């Protein structure tokens, strides 16, 4: 399949971005990985990274498990990579003029397998987020095969074009269904939530369009608005064993409005400029972060913990 640039979204002008110190361009690589074929997916990543860099993007975000595909089952150990593997090194090496967030199965020294998002920057692995919430219900079976992560940590983007400090947090798909996860990241100061996803479409009753698409629409807009931050949501497309992934990758602005219309269900690369001025405007209009009562949250949490101890 050929990745086509969306006609409605022109690739950005590199000079424009450089002139704006407080902006950077994100590319959302809405792809359909080949299930269990890391070598083929790796080549596609390298092509797209080069393409996005050539188009002037500063960071390219791939979907969840973009190197492997999603419904892996017993393939998990076969497709797992160590963080110092040749495959990850090749990807990191490709990320000198552009950053990337890629999805893979990471194997630890003690043979645990994480559903991980890896942030590559400056030719190296800059950050890893192991998915914390592994859905194991309905069509999902992640806890049978994978080990859960145990932390949500915000970090500084080192995106080449972002001259000012941008704070980011990664949430992999189901992580976002838990407001506590988003809240924990926001408390560490997040300007942009990077959300790789492999969300299957299900529920096609009238009025709901694809049921899951509706849920993600609500979540991405709500979190963006409540935490006055950008949400960069990159979902995959394609089918695995008859299950469709619905795409719909989008960027939602810090006022909760979708700044780029959700992509359809085809492979595509979507580009969007993220601007500090938009964050500033949103936080002046809705100073929710300023007003957040962390002291109340902490006091109440302590009280709940004390009571639990007594029980």
């Amino acid at each position, binding site marked *: 399949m050929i990745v086509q640039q969306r006609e409605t979204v022109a690739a950005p002008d590199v000079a424009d971005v450089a002139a704006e110190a407080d902006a950077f361009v994100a590319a959302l690589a809405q792809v359909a990985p*080949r*299930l*269990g*074929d890391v070598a083929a997916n790796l080549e596609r990543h390298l092509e797209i990274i080069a393409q996005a860099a050539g188009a002037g993007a500063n960071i390219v975000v791939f979907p969840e498990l973009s190197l492997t*595909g999603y*419904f*892996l*089952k*017993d*393939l998990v150990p076969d497709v797992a990579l160590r963080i110092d593997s040749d495959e990850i090194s090749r990807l990191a090496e490709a990320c000198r003029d552009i950053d990337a967030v890629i999805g893979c199965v990471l194997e630890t020294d003690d043979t645990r397998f994480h559903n991980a998002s890896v942030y590559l920057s400056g030719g190296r692995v800059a950050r890893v987020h192991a998915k914390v919430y592994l859905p194991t219900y309905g069509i999902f079976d992640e806890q049978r095969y994978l080990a859960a992560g145990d932390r949500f940590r915000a970090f500084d983007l080192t995106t080449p074009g972002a001259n000012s400090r941008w704070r980011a947090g990664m949430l992999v798909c189901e992580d976002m269904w838990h407001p506590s996860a988003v809240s924990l990241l926001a408390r560490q100061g997040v300007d942009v939530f990077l959300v790789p996803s492999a969300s299957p*479409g299900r529920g*096609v*009753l*009238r*009025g*709901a*369009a*694809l049921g899951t698409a509706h849920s993600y629409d609500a979540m991405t807009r709500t979190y963006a608005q409540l935490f006055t931050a950008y949400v960069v949501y990159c979902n995959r497309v*394609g*089918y*695995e*064993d*008859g299950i*469709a992934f619905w795409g719909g990758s989008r960027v939602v602005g810090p006022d909760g409005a979708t700044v780029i219309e959700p992509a359809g*269900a085809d492979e595509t690369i979507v580009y969007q400029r993220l601007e500090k001025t938009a964050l500033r405007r949103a936080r002046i209009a809705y100073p929710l972060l300023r007003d957040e009562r962390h002291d109340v949250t902490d006091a109440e949490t302590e009280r709940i913990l004390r009571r639990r101890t007594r029980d």
Partner: protein
Amino acid sequence: MSPTPRPSASSVDALEIDTAVVEELLCGFIHDEVHKVGFDSVVVGASGGVDSSLVVALACRALGAEHVYPVTMPYSTSSVQSEEDARAVCAQYGIEPEVENITDQIDAYFTRHPDAGLTRRGNKMARERMTILYDRSMAHGSLVLGTSNKTELLLGYGTLFGDMASALNPIGDLYKTQVYAMGGALGLPVRVLTKAPTADLWTGQSDEEELGLRYAIVDVVLFRLIDERRSRAEVVAMGFEAALVDDVMRRVRASQYKRRPPVIAKVSARTIDRDFRYPRDWGR
């Protein structure tokens, strides 16, 4: 005791689907799953009924009609109208079905087993048609598309390794009433959408008579029980007769074996489909 209320008309609304979304989903499914395993065409048994007509229409839209090979396989007692209806659907896409009459081989077999009843004969015909579809698929280098809907699959109203056999089934998650909705949206011929559903295994056969159930009602009962996971008591409280609900639940349980691959006796450390679990689209 107050009379049991009939299900209200609005209860059928629960099954209403966004036909445009479903069409996109199913055409994408056919295109993707056919192409990624190295094929570009499909074979479909076209009976002139709404299920196979919908599958023919979806396949033509997904792959282009020149990549769709419908096969009509009448028996001597099959209704002539069925074949005409199958032709009408194909004609909408500018194609003609191949016709493979199965009378000779079926009669040759049952000449030796004259005591066989209608069910045995019907099953034999369904399996004969399956072998023809798989042979045609080999001849054309195509995959066989299935035409069993969710109602039939859940009630077990199909022949194992007969009409239930296929490589890909685009409509197996649509209830019969949803198949009609899709057929209407895709503009299937009016006759196909309005005639009584029949497996056409013998003259005058009617699905609803044979099942003793009406699709419009049984689909809603199944939807409440299966999709919404409501309890028997909840579904009865919604106005469905307890006997009907029990009958539906019994049929679903009794036919579970038809929806599973054959049971394998476990001997080794890794047994197929128990602890050897790989996606079908492995490496695709």
